[in-house]
């Protein structure tokens, strides 16, 4: 049965976590564990390793809950950034093994499985981004996944994809601008003007 703490905002939950409230800890893990584990699994592609990464990410969020700054983003964005960085650090030691982004099982451009706790506005953003990425040329989508999820540099992408460095940079930039456009349909002029 859901407890009252399950209904509080992410920010309030994080405050309870920082204060050492056991109910807040349980609700925090319950709320974020599927998304954190899903992201870790997508990046490291090993269920046991993903479990380690996900556990460390949640524990790190717990240890640093008091230093969370809401001006820099949402709690979900913060927790996923911690997870991404930990997962990338984990797979970096296994490089230079090339990874085919199309083989990643967790990339879900068409998923519509919102968590009941998700912020509606954020869900809308993610759906918009998924839609935009689904329309990207395959090579741009691969570049974004390789850089954005797997942590590859443009130079590493150019070597793996056997393309010029400038082409790799352009693919990353164009894909990110599409994401930006999906988030702000009416405000992409300034980014494109810097091409």
């Amino acid at each position: 049965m859901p407890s009252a703490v399950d209904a509080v905002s992410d920010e309030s939950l994080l405050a309870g976590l920082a204060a050492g409230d056991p109910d807040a800890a349980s609700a925090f893990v319950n709320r974020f564990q599927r998304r954190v584990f899903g992201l870790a699994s997508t990046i490291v592609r090993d269920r046991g390793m993903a479990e380690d990464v996900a556990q460390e990410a949640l524990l790190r969020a717990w240890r640093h809950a008091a230093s969370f700054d809401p001006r820099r983003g949402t709690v979900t964005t913060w927790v996923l950034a911690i997870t991404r960085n930990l997962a990338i650090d984990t797979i970096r030691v296994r490089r230079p093994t090339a990874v085919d982004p199309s083989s990643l099982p967790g990339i879900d451009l068409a998923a519509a499985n919102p968590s009941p706790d998700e912020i509606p506005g954020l869900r809308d953003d993610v759906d918009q981004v998924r839609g935009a990425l689904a329309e990207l040329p395959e090579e741009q989508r691969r570049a974004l996944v390789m850089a954005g999820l797997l942590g590859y540099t443009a130079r590493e992408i150019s070597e793996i994809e056997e393309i010029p460095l400038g082409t790799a940079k352009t693919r990353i930039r164009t894909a990110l601008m599409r994401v930006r456009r999906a988030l702000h349909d009416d405000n992409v002029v300034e980014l494109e003007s810097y091409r």
Partner: protein
Amino acid sequence: MTALECADVRENAPELALDVMSGPDRAAALEHVSECADCRSVVAEFTEAVDVVPFLAAEAEPPLGFHDRVVREMTAPPRRSRRWWPAVLAAAAVMVAVVVAAAALFATSPGGSTRATAAGHIPPVAGNARSAVMVGDGNEAVGRLFVTAREPALMMVSVDYPVPSGSYTVQQRGDHGATHRLGEMQVADGHGTWGGVTADDHHGSIQLVDPAGAVLCESRIPTT
């Protein structure tokens, strides 16, 4: 600030936002961005797009018992290892060695000053220890890095930096971008110190990283 510098930074803005630039290039770009509001705005806009990329990964159900294990770690009282003394002795030995090395460095610096040279490095002292400045996002000196010449190198990082109190990761970033976690530094009221041993490869940079993975300050490991 020249237009060419801005053009260079803006060309690399996506990679800077994605945090996939190599150490030296990243440091140079951050230095520019800290002084250029227009470039900072461009990077921030790419960062906004970068933040939603992790949401593209589908959710997945963790293994049975995962929730309970994590919550148990969060709520359990601090445990004391039964084999506490080897770790304490090792840590004490490291700190003593580093402090001795640092003291030797101070003793041979004019007036005992730790002020940085123009290049940010202080020359090696009797082959024992070297020092460099930890540089913050705004290219300001926010701390110091001491490292001994022996292998494995002993290291001490101290910061005087107005960041929120809490625990920060000390990591070594190699010249090719790979990072290696060295330990955790507790920062209280803007002050923190960490001592330990470097990875086998003594090249690259030492970075202080916040919980979200952002590099707060860094220093090249001095080699000469």
